[in-house]
């Protein structure tokens, strides 16, 4: 349980972090955002204004999307979970990571509630692609031409991903700025000011991973009958994955000190 943390509760800093599992944590900001002294859980003067200040403080902040977030709960921050993807890496990874193109990890069973801005939130251009970013490359994109929107034949390079069985409530927004090849499956969004907020998108991926070739938006905005959620739970394999989830937080990338 993370309580009264100043700045981001859980912070993934550089963009080259991959394949970490962040599971079953509870992040509680115990001050209202409009507190005239503490301003929620914001803190100025750190090395990351976006993650820590009233710009976009978040319970979970990640510059890379290729990590697993499972079963976490984030409440009363400015944002519940922010996957920020506008840059090219940070620190020793600066210029070595195509943040907007990182694959989505497993984001399942999380709950974001009571956050002043977004619950589920991706910022920047989140268009996951199949690149050469891997653990073997220290999470760096070696051939950055693979981050381009089209291959030489004109096919888009996207790789689809799903937000699975997450819950958002009592937030102002849920969603994205520029994002595509994403699916909401079994999502419960209720009593948010904007149940889904999404600025710009793309035609869904057609060639890579052909089984994922249509843009299904399988959201369950359940205000009345929770059985609607159960009607969408058709993938038994997901429950197996849930059982196998690790409970550790593993930082595979050395990161510079985060001063929050």
């Amino acid at each position, binding site marked *: 349980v993370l309580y009264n943390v100043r700045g981001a509760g859980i912070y993934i800093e550089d963009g080259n972090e991959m394949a970490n599992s962040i599971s079953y944590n509870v992040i509680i900001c115990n001050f209202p955002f409009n507190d005239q002294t503490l301003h929620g859980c914001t803190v100025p003067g750190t090395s990351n204004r976006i993650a820590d200040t009233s710009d976009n403080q978040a319970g979970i902040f990640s510059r890379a999307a*290729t*990590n697993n977030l499972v079963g976490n709960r984030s409440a009363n921050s400015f944002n519940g979970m922010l996957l920020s993807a506008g840059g090219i890496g940070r620190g020793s990874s600066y210029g070595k990571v195509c943040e*907007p193109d990182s*694959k*989505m*990890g*497993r984001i*399942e069973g999380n709950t974001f509630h009571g956050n002043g801005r977004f619950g589920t939130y991706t910022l920047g*251009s989140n*268009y*996951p692609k199949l690149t050469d970013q891997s653990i073997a490359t220290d999470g760096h994109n070696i051939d950055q031409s693979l981050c*381009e*929107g*089209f291959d030489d*034949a*004109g*096919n*888009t390079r*996207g790789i*689809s*991903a*799903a*937000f699975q069985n997450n819950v958002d409530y009592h937030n102002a927004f849920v*969603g*994205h700025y*520029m994002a*595509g090849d994403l*699916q909401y*499956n079994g999502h419960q969004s209720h009593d948010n000011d904007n149940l*889904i*907020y*999404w*600025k*710009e*998108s*793309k*035609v*869904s991926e*057609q060639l890579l991973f*052909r*089984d*994922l*070739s*249509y*843009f*299904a*938006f*399988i*959201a*369950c*905005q359940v*205000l*009345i*009958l929770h059985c*609607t959620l159960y*009607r*969408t739970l*058709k*993938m038994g*394999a997901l429950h197996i994955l849930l059982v196998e989830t690790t409970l550790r937080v593993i930082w595979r990338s050395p990161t510079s000190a985060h001063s929050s």
Partner: protein
Amino acid sequence: MAFPDVGTFIIEDTTFGDDVTFEPNHHCNVGTTGVLCMPQYVLHRVDWMNKRNSKWVKFQSENTQPHNANQNHGGIFTLSPPDTILVIQGQEIENSFFPPGYVSLVSSKFNYLLSAPDNACVLSSDIGYGAIYDNGILCKLPLRSLKVYSRGLVSHSAPQLKVDVHFNNGGIDASQNIGFHQTGDDHQSEKQGYSLPVIPGTEHSYRLALLGGGGGGNIPDDWVIEFSDVVIGNRWNIEYIYLSLQGRTCGDIGLVSSHHDRKFIWSGTDFMRGDAWGNHGACVAADAMPKVECAAQNDGKILIGASV
């Protein structure tokens, strides 16, 4: 619900509760976001449980641009092909988003649809649903998007697009002039052109021409045409329209498939890479997109965690 602006969104097995409002094209043509503002929102086995008589849909009506070449009132709400068939066959879908007998909704600005045969499209306000559907047009027919990407035009001088529709079965032929759409200020973005909802099928044909702008009304050879989305054919069945472009050929007989080529058009970050103009989209020689059988591949549900 503030929906985005490009592509097709299949909303499936989903329940919407009280006070939900659909807002198509939420951010289309704000700054330089958005493309041609004609997304398809396909409702498949959706339970609309909002029983209040508040506004269920809010089409865009505000212009944040320094010009009036802004057609951001687009966006198509339509039942999935299987649900559409049920309604057309006379069945009533319980808790449908649409009134009995209707399967599609677009803004009232696309008034050519009101001339479709057999009163297939009506103003929602004429049948007592205006407040709910933002006075939009309800249709008993499916609707899909048709987009024409232009280049080199600017807001103050771009011509309108003249759309003529000819019906086989005695319906009144219909016409409408579609305004030019330009994302951002002049020269700020390359995203520009025309878009409109069309009725898929081969019982009618569409003819497009320019009103002025030089060239005798011809649609330039390098402009890119896009009909609907391959997702429709992948998930269900490929659809067609007959399309005639003044000054251009569109295949041998003008039959355009929803599976036509779409390469180099829009990746989410890259728009119309040079190879696209005149070589890709519909009504060119490019090969059709490959057919994907969604039903054989997890029924379209995306597996998570496969990447890490």
